[in-house]
């Protein structure tokens, strides 16, 4: 069992600070009021207990002055809560004009996000309830720090709720209607996403992670190069994902597999490494080297391998090459596909499995 979490949980957005200020204002005022009532109750219960009194009591019917006082003063205090609360709510419900837009789709029991450049990522859900490809695509919702983002949300089935406690924000996700929420993250780090509206059996597993990263990391990730989401497979819609599709389509996998009897080296963790060359010397495996190896494979052959690879010149466009580089760059140990893998269906579109369920 863990020790006690901090008194005030981490605050990671501008609205979070507004929430905390308001929350503690109400807390202090209510605590004072409540303790006042408790003090009076305790004092009366002790001072006027039967043992110290005669049993004969004064006939006190009330006091208009007191009634007025304890009607008007609480009303004013409550309205101060309302006013401040309305100010915070106004901020929370109106995203700034310059916010970057990200789409989020909720379904039983999965969250999917799509970035402006088409990159799609599953940001959480119940893995037991997913296809193999979906499971491998579970990543994080990567957001840039210190930049407002607007989240536009819709549900594929029942009502969900996209809540991020660290941002002190939440909003229901409805079927058939878009709702929006927005954040201005102020801290880097990883934060919980919870589904806060009961949505069925695995409601409590409809959770995910937000990763707030620096602007540079974010750009790199959005450019399809980085893999900060921590998903096993490149994120759908990213350059690396297209590269993976090509890698399978062009049959690269037939030789560059993780099989011990493979005819070509496995490419996991290749990017940036120094590769010893057949016949002496070594090369840094950067984008230039990888592109050259695809177009003119027999020019520089890695030590210990036969020069059997055909040239792909004319078969791949420069864009394809970029995608393949991004994919190879994203390949982490243990993530090379099986030789029998087919191209995975795009993540995010309704899947065959979920249609069958309807």
């Amino acid at each position, binding site marked *: 069992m863990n020790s006690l979490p901090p008194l005030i949980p981490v605050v990671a957005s501008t609205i979070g600070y507004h929430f905390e200020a308001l929350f503690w204002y109400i807390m202090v005022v209510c605590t004072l009021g409540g303790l006042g009532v408790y003090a009076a109750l305790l004092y009366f219960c002790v001072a006027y207990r039967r043992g110290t009194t005669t049993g*004969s009591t004064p006939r*006190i019917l009330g006091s208009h002055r*007191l009634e007025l006082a304890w009607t008007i003063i609480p009303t004013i205090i409550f309205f101060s809560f309302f006013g401040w609360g309305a100010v915070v709510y106004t901020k929370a419900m109106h995203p700034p004009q310059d916010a970057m837009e990200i789409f989020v789709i909720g379904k039983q029991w999965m969250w999917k996000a799509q970035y402006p450049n088409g990159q799609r990522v599953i940001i959480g859900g119940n893995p037991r309830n997913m296809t193999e490809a979906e499971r491998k695509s579970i990543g994080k919702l990567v957001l840039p720090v210190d930049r407002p983002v607007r989240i536009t949300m819709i549900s594929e089935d*029942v009502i969900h709720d996209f809540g991020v*406690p660290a941002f002190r924000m939440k909003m229901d996700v409805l*079927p058939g209607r878009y709702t929006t929420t927005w954040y201005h993250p102020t801290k880097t780090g990883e934060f919980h996403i919870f589904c*806060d509206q009961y949505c069925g059996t695995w409601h409590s597993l409809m959770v995910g992670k937000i990763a707030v990263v620096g602007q540079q990391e974010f750009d790199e990730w959005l450019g399809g190069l980085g893999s900060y989401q921590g998903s096993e497979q490149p994120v759908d819609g990213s350059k690396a994902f297209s590269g993976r599709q090509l890698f399978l389509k062009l049959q690269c996998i037939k030789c560059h597999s993780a099989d011990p009897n493979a005819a070509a080296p496995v490419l996991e963790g290749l990017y940036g490494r120094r590769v010893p060359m057949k016949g002496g010397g070594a090369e840094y495996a950067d984008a230039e080297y990888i592109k050259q190896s695809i177009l003119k494979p027999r020019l520089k052959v890695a030590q210990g391998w036969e020069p059997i690879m055909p040239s792909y010149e004319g078969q791949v466009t420069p864009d394809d090459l970029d995608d393949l580089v991004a994919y190879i760059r994203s390949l982490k140990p243990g993530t090379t596909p099986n030789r029998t893998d087919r191209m995975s269906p795009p993540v995010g579109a309704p899947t065959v499995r979920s249609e069958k369920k309807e």
Partner: protein
Amino acid sequence: MTTAVTTAGPKIAPVPPEPPPAEPNYLNVSYSLWSWLTTVDHKRIGLLYLISISVFFVAGGVAAGVVRLNLLSPDGAFVNEDTYNRAFTGHGVLMLFFFLIPAVPGVLGNFLIPMMIGAKDLAFPKLNLASWYVFMVGAGFGVWALLAGGIDTGWTLYPPYSSRSSTSNVIPGVFGVFISGFSSIMTGLNIMVTVHKMRAPGMTWGRLPLFVWSLYATSLIQLLGTPVVAITTVLLMVERVAGIGIFDPMIGGDPVLFQHLFWFYSHPAVYIMILPGMGVISEVLTCFSRKNIFGYHAVAWSSMGIAVVGFLLWAHHMFVAGISFYSALLFSFLSMLVAVPSAIKVFNWTGTLYRGSITFQAPMLFGLGFVVLFVIGGLTGLFLATLGTDIHLHDTYFVVAHFHFVMVGGMVLGYMAGIHFWWPKMFGVMYSDWWSRVAAAIIIVGFFLTFVPQFVLGYHGMPRRYPNYPAEFQVYNVMSTAGASILGLGYLLPAFYLPLSLVFGKKAGANPWSATGLEWVSPSPPPLFNFDEANMPVVVCGPYEYALGVDQLGRGLPPGPGLGEANDPASKSEAPAAPGPMKKETEVVG
């Protein structure tokens, strides 16, 4: 304005002799099961309700036990997600629709309203019996839904989950709620008409006990609100069975519409649950502090204020549900307004204790517990009514804790206070003083330990209805479960000493608490028609003349609980004086 303080002079009204035990009384007039099942006596029907809601309370409590035990571990301690979802739904449906809503109106209201206003029975005795049968039919559907495997929609039944997605027994469960709603309407109508038409001579509106006022306000909500939930549940069933699109956007409906309709009833419904409890507290605090209620009119009208304003704030359950920005502002503003009458009540109860002569028998302990817990329950409601804080706290354990502070800390303790206060009247016996005080103390302490950690959990963002949760929340969940086991123990005690008192309890007189209400005029247990046919009560004064030492008939009060003993200052203060015009000294302060 000034505070009028009138000190009672020598006790002027003579104490009436103890009335002879009623032969037969309503309990022993007949013994057959048939006579109970066909009774039209409001007291017997009250007991029928008492038995049935006690069963549902136990069942709901078991479901709560499953929920709390399972939360001991972040991945669920012993049941799977489906079972957990059915357990919390069962807990919610049973406790709300089959315990809290009928508890005080069905049991104490049925039993006491006619006696308090000096009537022989409720206005429509057969309707009253019908309401119990309708309730039991509704409950039968609820039990069917449970036995067939339960419902997993949560008590809020939000579509399209409940109409399209859930594979559980939604129809029988919802149908049970639909049917039992009619029982609620019947009881509300009955009480309302009774209060209007059957008050004893002299029982003016300004002399009604505050319990009657609060049940009158409750009845207003039951009459006007329950039909809306009936319609809503019918629409839900129609959509689920026939696929007619009302709430499901896939077939042309609007899911937010359901929430509006549902909360239009279910928000006032929480006042159906809490207002009767408030009424009980007004009776108990005055009696055990020997004081007039502070601000009778303020307390009475605040009940009506809550009942009326309570209809105008349903959408504060929907601030993040996708409603319009401006309606959120409006409903937050109105929600602040309903907090005011609740605050007024608390201040007046506190003022009632001022310069009292307070004893701490079980009803008083439960009553004080009510005030203490209701203060927290009410104040935490402000966090949820405030827009800026509700965004984060909505649908977290903060809501769960707030709701339980009001409903359990408030209503259940109010109900316990009422049961303990009127138990000697209902059965003519007194339960164990010591055990009842111990039970009250355990329940209040256990309650705090259970629900205070949940506020912290909610503030940290733990969503409600989560059998799996991040490990950092485990500490508070374990604390809460530990508290719940103490609370459960506290609830077990009355299940022993109350029934045992029926056999072994000391005989209680007509007025064991030395209280002023008309219900204490009849012998305990009361005769079949409450009051002596030839001697119907004529009310001469307001309900809480403890300072003067007279009941509502203007007769002196017998020695109170623990009084009449030599060492008690109250009993030897004054000897009863000769009858005559009431004298009082009035001093003016403030």
